[in-house]
């Protein structure tokens, strides 16, 4: 049970480039966090630094305000579940679960109770006394999970893409169980994944990483509605956010010769590459707005998406119910409160809002 702070933390392997660029981040006690990003973006490095498997080359790790940067994994009291199953071959499932507790000299009665509880939770009661090596990959990963969850007093539980080897049907079930467990245990959980669905359904707070950098940390709604960077807009949502190169004239963006009202004034830095961003969910085909060329309509069941072209760039918009375009020349409405302006990939604050947020 701890609040985890990372201060001016950075890491490089050997003398190579930064695997993790300098960052400051706080994980509140009891939070359910997801670390989301493409493969190789530094998620696992960050996780291993928190658990103490890797010592950061720069900066500090604080648990409840105490510097633990130089403390061993054991001393930090962290549980971690890895991407691929780790089971102790010579032991039974029960002994596997009990192993982390025995190593810490927990009383036998407590061990028995905890093991029974975890086996129940993971549906492994029937195989408790079977040798662990004979089980399927699914079951083995559940054993790894169980060993992570069995200790009651941990500062945090870290999951490194724990459901990679689990089949899709069980994935959903296990994720809900983890979520329920989090609600019950009040333990900080950090869940690393490259799958946005996993991240958005598991976590209260999602930390998006790209190329060794934390791009945005926020609730799933914030990530969806106000992506702080073009990367987040692309990475989260399916399909991702639309981005259109533009120029800004006061409170208007000019895209391919069409003026789009932004609803607020912006002061973009001179010389920056500007993009106008809008989620397909909020861009509606309509009778008025910016003219686009319709390529085709995809029916996704609940919604229909229009694949269009706007000023030579692909653009995805939602087709409102009952809307039947009669030709390829249609128009798209972009409500100004869902429009975001990006300078060199980063989101710009409108002038008025920037003033109030700064105050």
């Amino acid at each position, binding site marked *: 049970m701890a609040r985890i702070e990372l201060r001016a933390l950075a890491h490089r392997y050997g003398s190579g480039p930064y695997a993790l660029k300098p960052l400051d981040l706080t994980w509140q006690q009891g939070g359910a966090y997801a670390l989301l990003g493409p493969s190789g973006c530094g998620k696992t490095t960050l996780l291993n630094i928190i658990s103490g498997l890797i010592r950061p080359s720069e900066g500090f790790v604080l648990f409840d305000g105490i510097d633990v940067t130089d403390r*061993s994994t054991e001393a930090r009291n962290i549980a971690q579940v*890895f*991407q691929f199953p780790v089971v*102790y071959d*010579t032991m039974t499932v029960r002994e596997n679960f009990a*192993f982390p507790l025995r*190593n810490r000299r927990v009383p036998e009665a407590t061990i028995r109770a905890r093991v029974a509880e975890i086996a129940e939770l993971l549906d492994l009661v029937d195989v408790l006394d079977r040798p662990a*090596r004979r089980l399927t990959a699914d079951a083995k990963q559940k054993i790894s999970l169980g060993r992570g969850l069995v200790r009651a007093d941990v500062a945090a539980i870290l999951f490194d893409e724990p459901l990679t080897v689990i089949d899709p049907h069980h994935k959903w079930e296990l994720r809900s169980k983890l979520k329920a467990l989090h609600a019950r245990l009040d333990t900080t959980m950090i869940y690393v994944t490259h799958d946005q669905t996993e991240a958005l359904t598991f976590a209260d707070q999602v930390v998006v990483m790209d190329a060794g950098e934390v791009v945005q940390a926020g609730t799933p709604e914030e990530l969806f509605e106000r992506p702080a960077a073009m990367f987040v807009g692309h990475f989260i949502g399916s399909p991702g956010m639309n981005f259109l190169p533009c120029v800004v004239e006061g409170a208007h963006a000019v895209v391919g010769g069409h003026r789009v009202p932004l609803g607020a004034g912006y002061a973009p830095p001179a010389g920056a590459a500007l993009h106008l961003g809008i989620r397909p969910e909020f861009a509606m085909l309509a009778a008025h707005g910016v003219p686009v060329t319709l390529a085709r309509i995809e029916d996704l069941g609940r919604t229909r998406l229009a694949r269009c072209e706007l000023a030579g760039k692909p653009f995805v918009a939602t087709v409102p119910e009952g809307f039947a375009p009669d030709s390829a020349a249609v128009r798209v409405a972009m409500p100004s409160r869902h429009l975001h302006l990006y300078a060199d990939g980063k989101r710009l604050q409108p002038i008025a809002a920037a003033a109030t947020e700064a105050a």
Partner: protein
Amino acid sequence: MDRPVNNRAWLLVLPVLGIVSFSALIPLMTVVNYSVQDTFGNNRFFWNGLGWFSELLDPSTDQGGRFFDALWRNLLFSAIILTIQVPLGIAVALSMPRSGWRVSASLVLLAMPLLIPWNVVGTIWQVFARGDIGLLGAAVNGLGIPFNYTQDPIAAWVTIIMMDVWHWTSLVALLAYAGLRSIPDAFYQAARIDGASAWSVFRKIQLPKMKRVLLIAVLLRFMDSFMIYTEPFVLTGGGPGNSTTFISIDLVKTALGQFDLGKAAALSIVYNLIILAVCWVFYTVMTRNDARDVA
């Protein structure tokens, strides 16, 4: 679907059959032939039935006594070799570096003794352990401990065992190291997270993962030490007395020293059968373990 059946295809096996017969079957059968006959020279042979075998397997006869003495020596030697080399090899493998240039350096160093011809190993140790001019022998004598492997059976055994440990522990270490390298890092990380002690990491992770290669190492080392000939032949020639006369040395003495072809042939066959039997036991144990893992 009808498959064409042409029995002439069997003719294709003939060359292999010919080579195997020439190189293995015929020499082996010659030995079997000698083992049931006696000769008084002049290339004249007499049928002796199982006479040589019953003499060999009866410890009260001269031949049988020699054989059983040599057999116990062999078994004792193999037992000592295994109890030293296997734990030592594992210890060496555990203390080897896991990455960087040191890996290649230590692998090359370890492989070195394995590349030295066996009679050269014998010669090196013969000189090294000499009480008068050998570095080891002279040093031990200099400490006030009498050490002379040509006269003292204990000293001879100690020298042969040290020589074999020096020569072959590398093999066990290399095999154990290969087993260790097959363990993914995640296992060590998980063990650290689980708070496992170094001893439990060894018992619960490393040893189980090394089990298969260690079985192979034990098999190889048993076979090799049970068949040892060259090094003790060069070092002690089987002496002092008969104290380091292993079966192979006795066999050569019987066949080439005394020219007792019948006795030597019977001894060869029994020696061979012992090794085959031990091989079979190891093979069965290994395959049964594998089958259990799969089940």
